[in-house]
């Protein structure tokens, strides 16, 4: 198995998502509040994982633009759960870098009045895996 296939399998396994269930309706991207920030949009994540195109995803800033709001998971008519894929790719990227981007110690400095607590929770969830 080459690296490409390995990565694909790893992400599918880690996310528990079956991207071939996608019927290309694009409701995930239609619903995504971070759409404009993302280079690769939720439906592209699904498609690219399905076709094994993981490298560009790993190197994309899109990984960190996803808000983990799970709207795509809620709306997807096929139960594909794109956010879980994004998360799995993110996790892979972070593991490859060998470091977490955020620790519990970093949180207190980030607490500011205009930062919503939900954001910190999401960030913590995202950057500690």
């Amino acid at each position, binding site marked *: 198995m080459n690296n490409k296939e390995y990565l694909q399998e790893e992400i599918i396994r880690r996310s528990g998502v079956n991207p071939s269930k996608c019927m290309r*309706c*694009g409701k*995930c*991207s239609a*619903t995504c509040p971070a759409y*404009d920030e993302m280079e690769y949009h939720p*439906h592209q994540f699904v498609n690219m994982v399905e076709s094994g195109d993981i490298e560009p995803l790993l190197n994309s800033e899109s990984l960190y633009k996803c808000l983990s709001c799970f709207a795509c998971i809620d*709306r997807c008519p096929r139960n594909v759960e794109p956010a879980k894929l994004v998360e799995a790719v993110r996790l892979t990227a972070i593991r490859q870098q060998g470091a977490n981007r955020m620790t519990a110690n970093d949180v207190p400095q980030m607490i500011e009045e205009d930062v919503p607590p939900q954001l910190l929770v999401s960030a913590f969830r995202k950057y500690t895996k």
Partner: protein
Amino acid sequence: MQRVGVFVCWCGSNIAGTVDVEAVSEALKSEPGVVFSTNYQYMCSQAGQDMIKEAVKEHNLTGIVVCSCSPRMHEATFRKTAAAAGLNPYMVEIANIREQCSWVHKDMLTGTEKAIILGKAAIAKVNLNTPLTPGESPVTKRALVIGGGIAGIQTALDIADAGFPVDIVEKKPTIGGKMAQLDKTFPTLDCAACILTPKMVDVAQNEKIRIFSYSEVSEIKGFVGNFDVTIKKNARFVKEDVCTGCGACVDKCPMKKIPNEFNLGMDNRKAIYIPFAQAVPKVATIDPNACNMLKNGKCGLCAKVCTAGAIDYTQKDEYIEEKYGAIVVATGFNPISMDKFDEFAYNQSKDVITSLEFERLTNAAGPTAGKLLRPSDGKHPHTIVFVQCVGSRCDACAEKGKEYCSKICCMYTAKHAMLTRDKYPDTEVYVFYIDVRTPGKNFDEFYRRAVEEYGVKYIKGMVGKVTPEGDVLKVQASDLIANKQLHIDADLVVLAAAIEPDKSARPLATMLTASMDTNDFFTEAHPKLRPVESPTAGVFLSGACQGPKDIPETVSQAGAAASKVIGLLAKDKLTGNPCVAHSNELMCNGCSSCERVCPYGAITYSDKEFRMPDRTTKIRRVASVNPAVCQGCGACTVACPSGAMDLNGFANSQIMAEVDAICK
């Protein structure tokens, strides 16, 4: 003791290539009961069959074993041969030495050995065979059609046309169904009412057809050719035979604020009402939940103005019992509820509507007299967004929506979009689609016309969110081809809601012992070869109760169901499959185990008097099987602890004998 003849077929070299047919016929000669054994090149050929017939005469055979191909191939052939020779056709057993022997084993020794054992098993079985005669039952030459939509109407008309009486049971006050609510029909754009209402009149005027409107089926007993059905005629508090449908009562009724079901609640009706102008029967109906007179005895205006004296506040539900030979299910469909789709704001904004509601909004007889106006403020919408596949093609685990494609939405959405652009060229029309599915005569041409000639904007993608803000609907959607997220300020959003079988179908299926799939669509007897028959004999399927369908398909299925019904009713007698279960009353405990596992409701119980050895009598509950209903699965035979229940053609003793022959 049986006198058995054994006929081993070579099937050219198909069998003889791997099985020593000579050795097989020789070995089987010494089996119990065998008086004659031979082999021949092609047993199924005319010469082979003649050989069997001659042997039957010459050796006084009472049973025949043919060692040949699968019984699924030629059992029927050899049964006919036996019958032609004067034997009961069920005295024939086949040993499958081709598909299950010569073709799967390469070695001559192995093949021959196995063929002999298979032959022995067939001989052991035929020794216990008994002549079977298929039962006969009469046919009541009247059909029942449940549901008075276009499917039911067409079926009833076709059956009546063949000269058989038909009854239609419709739960609404009028027949017509969903088609009566539609505006235009794709792909020809003729008006639904113009083509439907003449048919409704035909039904009303056809003397072979009776309409039970505002009625439902409450009980079904019996079986193919002989159904006993109880129809509940709900009290409509108006004498149907007296009412002239003049509408004076409706004008005078003071209860004005009742949501009008026919217009999907987009306007109001009175407590006494006629659903629409062309209703059949054109008779008023009083809504007992809204009428003051029925609720607290105050009012009575309608009775005062009715010159015909048709109003009867004391009317009671009526039960009618009737016999039928065939039942056609035509219960149709409904759009699914939009409650679980919060993202489209259906429950938050009046301007988010379903396609059926849009149909009423554009219908000349609808709440806006055909003018396309927003339900919220009555203004003309300038931007309309159509969303397809709302609740269709959902994953089963998603728990909202349906797994299947609702089939009709692509076409009616194209129709809505096209008609809107045609009548109001100043409107922008967007259609969000996942796939556009247009298999059908002139369907794709129609859709292309919407795009190319009428300038409907088809966007590959889905709407993710609709947010009402002031008097606009903020639509957030994706355009997958442009790889963009779109934000559209719409005035009206139209949802192509998935369709589902009518809620009345499930209890009806239970009454009919007809099977359904997990979506509550009726199952056909065979998905390809018997698409309009239910597996339950005598029950036929018409229209969307079997699966999503458009009008042309529904009408053709309705005609097909009618022809099946006519074929059944044209018979004076039905001959059944003789391989059915039967109960030995002397051994039956009357415990009901068999009845519980019978998928056809073929088993009934009665109290019978038995004479005991001590000359006293004893009354016992015993089972009996209706051979016309039983299909011969044998589930009851295993459920029966005493072994009183047995199956013709596959009796306990016969199967046991086969086991013994194989394990000898």
